[in-house]
């Protein structure tokens, strides 16, 4: 019995898919008996066949909250870090706590993290996305067939599988962020009025329109961050504020930035990318963040409302690493490092300056 390799491939695949006549099954069986090499050859096909049935089919259960003495919002958050893998796009619908995945026959696929929840997904091409709280990505059913395009509201970190023939495009705000194979973070909450892209490795191109409605294109290098402001007023205010702060703290590396002409864009080189991406990790690293910005992240992350009773306290800056801490613990840390006090009631937190601490703080 002599079989050509092509015939054998054909036979094996048709056996696995069940599309085989009885005498062909006998032929295959006899061929397998001939040598261990033949069997090994068959097994390599069988393994691809079986592995492809597992691809993207595991959803990890919600993690249990480790802490007991916290208020409910936090317990909810910790319980909802859901890892959901998505593949295929037909009539598959599942809800995992606060993260919902919807796959419709015609509708685009939408993956959403509610306030107080985070999630991550594997996209049909194998690329991964981590979603921060109150964020949403969606893509059409044609995703990966001829292009890879995603719409983002909120914040997400992407780990993109290399595929030169199909650029990976994230649409956020007024920008299109194009990547080949790369890891990058995009923060685009509508209420922030800006889109911040941070490149960890690889390269991305950002496309958009400037204030005169002219197209622009900027290439990002690893360890660079670009913030695009939708409104020029915000942009100017931000520049002034940062310049003032930089004059107070000379050599403050994390704040070194370049202005780009005609564009409401700030480019920062040599940034510590973890400051922009660690929200998704166990250790959330914060450096020189104004309380104003930090509390906005906290509001989404812990699904609470944070208000200030004192304007001056908003501008104070905080550095530190949050390691699975609860909201209460974070507030306590803030209270210990900055001259503030806080009250907390039913998910509403009010931060006020602490006069006594303020005196000591300013003396230091």
């Amino acid at each position, binding site marked *: 019995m002599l079989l050509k390799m092509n015939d054998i491939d054909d036979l094996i695949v048709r056996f696995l898919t069940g599309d085989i006549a009885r005498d062909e099954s006998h032929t295959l069986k006899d061929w397998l008996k001939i040598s261990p090499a033949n*069997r090994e050859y068959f097994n390599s096909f069988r393994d691809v066949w079986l*592995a492809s049935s597992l691809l993207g089919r595991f959803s990890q259960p919600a993690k249990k909250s480790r802490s007991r003495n916290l208020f409910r919002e936090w317990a909810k958050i910790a319980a909802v870090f859901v890892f959901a893998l998505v593949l295929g796009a037909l009539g598959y619908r599942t809800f995992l706590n606060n993260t919902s995945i919807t796959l419709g026959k015609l509708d685009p696929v939408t993956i959403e993290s509610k306030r107080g929840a985070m999630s991550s997904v594997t996209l049909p091409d194998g690329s991964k996305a981590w979603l921060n709280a109150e964020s949403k990505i969606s893509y059409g059913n044609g995703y990966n067939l001829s292009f890879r395009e995603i719409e983002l509201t909120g914040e997400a970190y992407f780990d993109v599988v290399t595929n030169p023939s199909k650029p990976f495009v994230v649409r956020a705000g007024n920008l299109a962020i194009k990547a080949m194979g790369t890891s990058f973070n995009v923060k685009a909450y509508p209420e922030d009025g800006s889109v911040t892209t941070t490149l960890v490795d690889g390269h991305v191109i950002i496309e958009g329109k400037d204030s005169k409605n002219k197209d622009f294109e900027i290439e990002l290098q690893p360890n660079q961050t670009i913030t695009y402001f939708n409104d020029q007023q915000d942009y100017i205010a931000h520049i002034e504020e940062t310049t003032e702060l930089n004059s107070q703290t000379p050599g403050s590396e994390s704040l070194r930035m370049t202005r780009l002409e005609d564009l409401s864009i700030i480019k920062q080189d040599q940034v510590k990318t973890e400051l922009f991406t660690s929200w998704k990790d166990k250790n959330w690293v914060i450096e020189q963040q104004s309380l104003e910005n930090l509390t906005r992240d906290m509001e989404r992350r812990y699904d609470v409302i944070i208000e200030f009773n004192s304007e001056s306290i908003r501008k104070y800056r905080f550095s530190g690493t949050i390691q699975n801490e609860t909201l209460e613990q974070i507030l306590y840390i803030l209270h210990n490092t900055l001259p503030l006090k806080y009250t907390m009631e039913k998910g509403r937190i009010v931060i006020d300056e602490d006069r006594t601490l303020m005196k000591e703080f300013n003396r230091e």
Partner: protein
Amino acid sequence: MNPPDEEMLVCLRSGDERGYGRLVVTLQEAACLYAKSIVLHTVTAHEIVNDVFLKLWTNREQITIKSSFRSYLFRMIHNQCCDYLRSNKRSAELNFISIEDMKLRQEVFEIADTDTSFEKLYSEQAETNLAREIGKLPDQCREIFILSRFEQLSYPEIATRLNLSLSTVKTQMVRAMVKLRDAMKDFI
């Protein structure tokens, strides 16, 4: 061992029925599709998987799992599927594939069977590589493979949907498998 695995073992050992149920849900889809890849019949695959999960639960006190929970589970499903193909009792009821053909399928699997470990078939790296290689397939080939493997469409369904002949669908499926095997032979 990854966290759900560990959690599964904890649930089994402590008799946490709800926890076990919750984890079963997360593994069910993969388990059923895996079983279906062997027995080629959806309802049977579901029955086998349910049986296995139930068996694991009722025998939880006797079972010692040395490897990871998942590899134990998938090995058990694999064996159960082969047992099913070997037995001729239930297949007659279902009548979707003749007893003779089922026996042949089992024999081929048995002759070939070197231990298919779950770790080998499923790791994050293998997953990423396989997904990438599927992405690299020529358009038509990839589409057919995806419709067949992930959306569980039959060949005639694929042919109708893509407006292709049945033989084109079959040829392209063989082509996809051959390409994937070549690309994955070092990983799996």
